[in-house]
């Protein structure tokens, strides 16, 4: 359709279409007609749950080229019925924020800055330190000779932002290692 056609003049459009009040299709420009929403071009949509508070609002995660391009409320959720609060609505930025740290960093004793490490090296270093701290902080019995079989050399804090499966592995591993000082936000 030529953009110079007199039929495209707004007043003609208004009468030509059923939009007699001129508040609907008659006033949509070609540019607007050419635009499609990001959500329509997504390769796939994945159902998820908002990571902020404990209401548990449903989210739809729109993915294109293996990147999250948009996160919206899930109208199917009987809890949230498609709504999200400012935080939930901003959660695409939680994933794609330019300030997010995606590299392992290490600060040596007394150092004034970070240095980069690869994940494997860092995990090995942590495993070595874990075993040493566990041994050094080990207590076989209390002062009355009652068994303790634990270590006080290691502690952990956090879990309320994590998945049940993750908390399960954390508690399982730490308990088997004899670490008891395991805590999370539920006590904060």
């Amino acid at each position, binding site marked *: 359709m030529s953009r110079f056609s007199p039929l495209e003049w707004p007043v003609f459009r208004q009468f030509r279409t059923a939009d007699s009040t001129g508040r609907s299709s008659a006033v949509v420009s070609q540019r607007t007609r050419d635009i499609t929403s990001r959500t329509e071009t997504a390769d796939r949509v994945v159902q*998820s749950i908002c990571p902020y508070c*404990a209401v548990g609002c449903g989210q739809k995660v729109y993915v294109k080229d293996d990147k*999250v391009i948009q996160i919206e409320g899930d109208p199917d959720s*009987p809890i949230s019925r498609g709504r999200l609060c400012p935080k939930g609505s901003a959660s695409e*930025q939680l994933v794609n924020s330019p300030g997010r740290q995606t590299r392992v960093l290490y600060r040596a004793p007394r150092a004034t800055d970070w240095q980069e490490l690869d994940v494997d090296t860092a995990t090995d270093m942590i495993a070595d330190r874990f075993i040493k701290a566990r041994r050094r902080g080990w207590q076989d019995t209390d002062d009355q000779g009652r068994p303790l079989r634990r270590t006080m050399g*290691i502690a952990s804090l956090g879990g309320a932002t994590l998945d049940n499966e993750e908390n399960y592995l954390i508690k399982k591993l730490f308990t088997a290692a004899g670490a008891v000082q395991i805590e999370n936000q539920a006590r904060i």
Partner: protein
Amino acid sequence: MANADCIIIQGSNMAECHPVGFQWVTEAKARGAKVIHVDPRFTRTSAVADKHIPIRTGTDIVLLGALINYVLSNDLWFDEYVRAYTNAANLVNEDFQDTEDLDGLFSGYSVKDNAYDMESWSYQTTEQHDQDSDDAAEPDESALSTHSAYHGYGTSWDEHHGEPQDRSDETAPEEHEEGDDEREQAGGDKYGSGGAPVGPGVPLRDDTLQDPQTVFQILKRHYARYTPDMVQDACGISIEDFEYMARAIIENSGRERTTCFAYAVGWTQHTLGAQFIRTASILQLLLGNMGRPGGGIMALRGHASIQGSTDIPTLFNLLPGYLPMPSVRTETFTDYLDTISARDQKGYWAYADAYAVSLLKAWWGDAAQAENNWAYDYIPRLNGPHGTYQTLMNMLADQVEGYFLLGQNPAVGSAHGRLQRMGMSHLKWLVVRDLNMIESATWWKDGPEIQSGELRTEDIDTEVFFMPAATHVEKSGTFTQTQRLLQWRHQAVNPPGDSQSELEFFYKLGQRIRERLADSDDPRDRPLLDLTWDYPTDEHGDPDAEAVLAEINGRHLTGENAGKPLSAYTEMRSDGSTSGGCWIYTGVYADGINHASDRVPGSEQDEIASQWGWAWPANRRIIYNRASADPQGRPWSERKKLIWWDEDQERWVGKDNPDFPIDRAPGSTPGKDKRGGDALAGDDPFVMQADGKGWLYAPKGLVDGPMPAHYEPQESPVANPLYAQQQNPTRMTFPRWDNLFAQSAGKPGTEVYPYVFTTYRLTEQHTAGGMSRWLPYLSELQPEMFCEVSPELAEEKGLEPYGWATIISPRSAIEARVLVTDRMKPLTVRGHTVHQIGLPYHWGVGQDAVVTGDAANDLLGIALDPNVHIQNGKVGSCDIKPGRRPRGPEVLELVSEYQERAGLTPATSNTMVTDPQRELTAEQIEDGSP
């Protein structure tokens, strides 16, 4: 909540902190429900409520206790409900003495331990009456020996395995639970899915409720002085406002109508937080608002899976499913099980042995056998509290080498930020796993203590590992939201760069630790080496979260169903034939189907929406819903019907999954030889309680009293108007020069910190900011730390709107922009004006976030609730003055100048028993002398 006729939001700013959940309050209101908001601040919740009632922070028990008194003294309770479903008729031990008798203490208080012996709080039972009738409360020593005498009680567990033994022919060990033990182990929160065990024997009742020793009469006497005048005096609430609230609740409770309460950390973060919630529970039971649509007490929790991380606890005192961590006092497996329940008791805790053995089988597989008590000794033992604040004290004493922070930012989010950061500077190594470079990862180079010169980067020996984490869309797994609903998230994309989920990181860390110890013959390493740690992995070596969920659900290990998932926790056995990592979650993976990912759209279901996610236990959406029907099994009213007894089918039927044995007829009275679920009578709706009843009075389970009593906060300018006892006498304190508290109750020095501050959250920020202050959108919406003050206070102190103010507490001094607003109202309390200051706590000092600022939590001291060890975070004393805080070491000088002027020492406000005269009385109580 959408079904409620009246909603009381108290201790929560629901519209701003849980805005999407608040749509259900709005729906209820649109249908005509009355909404009342009780809060120190006028917020957007208040703006849409029918009424906002400002309250002095920390005085909620006075208000709720007065409502209880109003109900009891005006004969307004729901009589049939109370008689049938609560312990109102139970008779309490003659030795019990109330706070009314002892001016703020209950009987059994030990000055030595700052804890209660709960013996005198117990019920009168048939057994007691069969015995000698002059059995006074046992002194501590003999109680201890009783305790150790039954360590080897009965036969050993080896002979007990298999079906639990019938103990009806044996004398059950005398129940004895010591307050100091419970207090040390945060005993209160192990009852997250049920009540405490009650003693042996059948409790005696007086169904006329007239005996002075009935729970009902005791409750009446306990709250007699909680009057509207007292509310006005203590809370600063007018008598008209109190009566408006009382009428709204009464008019909207009963057969036809229900009232719902909602709270958040405004109720929990106090030195008697658990008791705030207890007071509301008593009121709701008296009015028949529990287990019914539109009733109950809603906890509005702040993290996506904070409920899940309590159910499957990364907490020191619990194992999954609210099983307690073993302590030095439970040397054998039998001892351990005895502390959870008597296996011949009523209710589903009687099967604790099956839950515990199934857990041990899940963790240690074939290494867990009857011969080694199912590897019970592989679990480390507690001998005291190891909560996050006790761990902090250990850090400061150089006893902790390594610390993992997993999506938590204690430098900003925990009480007393300065101590948190100082504690971390004592570590050998610190692993921070987060999405962003939070202040807890950078305090060593840009924290406030570097700026004040207290710490020097070049002197700090702590190694710090920053390990990037995966976001919620970069991994699959379940969150448990605040109504116990598990919802599965499908993975959308892979984590970027080095980022890993906790599942992957801990799985791989566990593998490496086990590899390094593989050749060890040290018995200390057996629990790690025997651990079941073999999950299916994808091409990146990441473990499959669904396989972990299946392990949590549990499976049959033997017989024709071997390998098949369990369908319900009632299938768990104590003979090693089943496994299951968290008994309350059993059923989420029934038939091998991940029910947490059930997603039938809400529009295609009724309002219960049972096919969206999966709620523990057994996909029940309203727990204790047997109480929604009358004792005969008929709904209390058509309007409030939920489940009912169907005579023809001889089953409970209805909209929700019945939380009751499905074929137990309303009138049935199982014989005394029955145990567990089989022993529940047809009118015992509270199926996890050892007596099947809702507790108006808690003979056990709470370490600071069987009924809530009002105490003032740890530091409060106001003297307790009810008792000589100023503060909770069992609260946990840490008297140190770096954790000072202001003077209380008008003692000399109180005027140095004359104002009360409270902390809170905003819609556009999240907790300590780790997931919000790095997002440009949210940072733009709430860019800067501020304080809310009333026009009167601004006038008094010369605070300029939008200018700066410095707020000084006995711990720290911070600066904030001034917001002068009549949302803050000065209250008149006991003839004095109390000004309250509101402080959002999202900001922290650092350089990496989009927005930074001083942290409100730096002002807080550390004093804890004795039941659950939560910090007193919602109330403190401070001063405020115009202008920015000093920079460098001068800020420390300012804080010390205030401390000296107020004459503070570690003893200030840390006295446990307030009146020295009364310490004698307390000693007498302990000695058992009159």
